[in-house]
């Protein structure tokens, strides 16, 4: 919409020609200038500039709709009103049906916790035929860390949906719908330790915009995984007014408890719509709904099984405060070694 051509907007010919003569061809260029600047540049009076800008603005603006018409549209046209069910009952209930379409869902957690396992399961679920509760579609799996395992995915498939996978040729059909991309240049995906500041924000911002607009226009679920990094003790910052009144504020005990935070910083944290934190605490893995516009902050204990991930408790434990966003990684050694034996 931003790049819509002025020549196609139905402006009166005289003013449209003036825009063209001054090399202002797209709406973006016209609206990036203030009305005074336009008046100077185009050499026309204020009244004409105002009406031209109003006309362009009306055309470039998104179409008017009410929240009700949007809902009816989604209920009618989309599977489960725009959700991909994960088959984890507690999680699906918390998320209002499943992973939502059109927005970014992030899985963040320490290495080996089960993010890739979850992604493999989701890829399968998306490719299943509608009669089995899937989206009957193709999946693009961008594997930046070379962790995709076809063998494991087929194993998950056969254990979770034996009736489909034992049918001749179905495994091939399902696996055939999943396209795995392995980007060779990982420099964009890896963290740059010394490249803090504006440069990093610039490229990250571009990636964020791009992914979100793809999700929005195509109305598909987009799931991303994220790594964790450790933070120094004064990592969680405060506002200036909090610093001034340090004596009165309640101490945030979570600061000293956990040393891990999601990578990519607060800018990225704002961009994702749903953040699912996977962590290990006292030997048990938890799946926490850390950020979600629709659900309360719930934590579900889970295990990794031959058929993917399974929740031990569908009710979920409600967590108070910012604890829901902290990431623990305690007692993990036995879990990782134990599972890697099983997976071999």
């Amino acid at each position, binding site marked *: 919409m931003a790049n819509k051509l002025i020549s196609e907007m139905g402006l009166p010919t005289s003013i449209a020609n003036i825009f063209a003569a001054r090399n202002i061809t797209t709406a973006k260029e016209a609206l990036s200038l203030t009305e005074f600047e336009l008046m100077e540049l185009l050499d026309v*009076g204020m009244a004409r500039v105002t009406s031209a800008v109003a006309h362009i603005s009306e055309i470039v*603006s998104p179409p008017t709709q009410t929240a009700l018409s949007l809902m009816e549209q989604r209920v009618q046209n989309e599977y489960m009103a725009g959700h991909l069910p994960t088959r984890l009952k507690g999680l699906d209930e918390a998320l209002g049906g499943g992973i939502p379409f059109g927005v970014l869902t992030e899985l963040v957690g320490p290495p080996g916790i089960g993010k890739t396992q979850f992604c493999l399961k989701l890829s399968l679920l998306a490719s299943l035929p509608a009669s089995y509760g899937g989206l009957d579609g193709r999946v693009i799996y961008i594997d930046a860390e070379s962790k995709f395992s076809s063998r494991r995915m087929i194993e998950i498939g056969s254990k979770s949906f034996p009736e489909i996978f034992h049918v001749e040729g179905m495994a091939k059909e399902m696996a055939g719908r999943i396209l795995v991309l392995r980007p060779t240049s990982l420099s964009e995906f890896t963290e740059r330790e010394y490249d803090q500041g504006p440069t990093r924000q610039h490229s990250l911002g571009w990636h964020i915009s791009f992914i979100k607009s793809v999700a929005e226009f195509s109305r598909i679920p987009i799931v991303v995984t994220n790594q964790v990094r450790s933070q120094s003790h004064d990592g969680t910052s405060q*506002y200036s007014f909090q610093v001034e009144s340090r004596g009165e504020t309640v101490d945030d005990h979570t600061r000293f408890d956990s040393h891990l935070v999601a990578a990519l910083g607060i800018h990225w944290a704002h961009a994702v719509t749903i953040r699912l934190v996977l962590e290990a605490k006292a030997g048990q893995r938890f799946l926490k709904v850390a950020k979600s516009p629709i659900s309360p902050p719930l934590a579900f204990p889970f295990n990794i099984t031959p058929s993917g991930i399974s929740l031990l408790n569908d009710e979920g434990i409600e967590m108070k405060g910012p604890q829901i966003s902290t990431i623990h990684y305690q007692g993990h050694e036995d879990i990782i070694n134990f599972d890697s034996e099983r997976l071999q």
Partner: protein
Amino acid sequence: MELARLPISASQRGKLISAGYTSLSSLSSLSPSTLAQDLKISDNEALEILRVVSQGSRLDKPDGSHAIVNGAQTAWDMLHEEESLKCITTSCVDLDDILGGGIKCKEVTEIGGVPGIGKTQLGIQLAVNVQIPVYYGGLGGKAIYIDTEGSFMLERALQIAKACIEDMSGNSDFLQKDFQSCQVKAQPKDFLQNIFYFRVCSYTEQIAMINYLDKFISEHKDVNVVIIDSVTFHFRQDFDDLALRTRLLSGMALKLMKLAKKFSLAVVLLNQVTTKHTEGSFQLTLALGDSWSHSCTNRVILYWNGDERYAYIDKSPSLRSASAPYSVTGKGIRTATSKCKRIKIM
């Protein structure tokens, strides 16, 4: 030079000056045909220029005792207006308290906080609460929700609308007047009908939308609140020219203020948070920079204090700096249950 202030094009101004017309008074008693001949322009153009000149000179007349500048009001008149200002409740008693009754109409309020603190929740709650009928103490108006990030969740809006209706019918038992007869049983879906939803995908669309709002609201006079969630998003991505960004943002802020005043509605802007290096440590601050922080009338920061969510009035011409706890529940924004932790920061 008075001519420099007229909203006419540069070439017209140039022609006027080269023909010898350097002040407004020299143009005051001129006929269009004479001017047209002098400047070698068409009669219509000359008429247009003279019309603009006459508008301009009306403002300049030194009239002695009744010098009313266009658009000004006396402070006394404004006091009457301010006292009758309506507010939109946030459904949290403490938060309404520190806001002086709720989010004020005719003002631009900026609300910022870390991800997950409840900005979108508050936005949706306000979009629902503005629709509370007048006899329940609300405004009975409609809402415009401009979504720049796709965080508006329909299911959540339905949940909040349903809880609002339940609360209203619970309250009606305590009201003296009997409304059962004239009351239409509201459905959550009716609430969704009154929220105009716009999904904006780039900063150009955001600017266009705000320009278009003037016309849209003239056609839908019952809109009482405009919520932009979030105003930051498109301005944080790959903006090479920061000077342009500041210009666009201040232009946007001015238009929103004008909208708020013209149509007597509340404008609520949701903002994100960024870290800033000051005094040797990293502090959290609202995004978009220092120039933007001057643009809004009121600024509210949502933050975590221990396990509770708090709101802090950071900047306001009429409200005192104070904090209030609130909570986000299945029903939406509500009063915090444990009031013993309330902290007032003066």
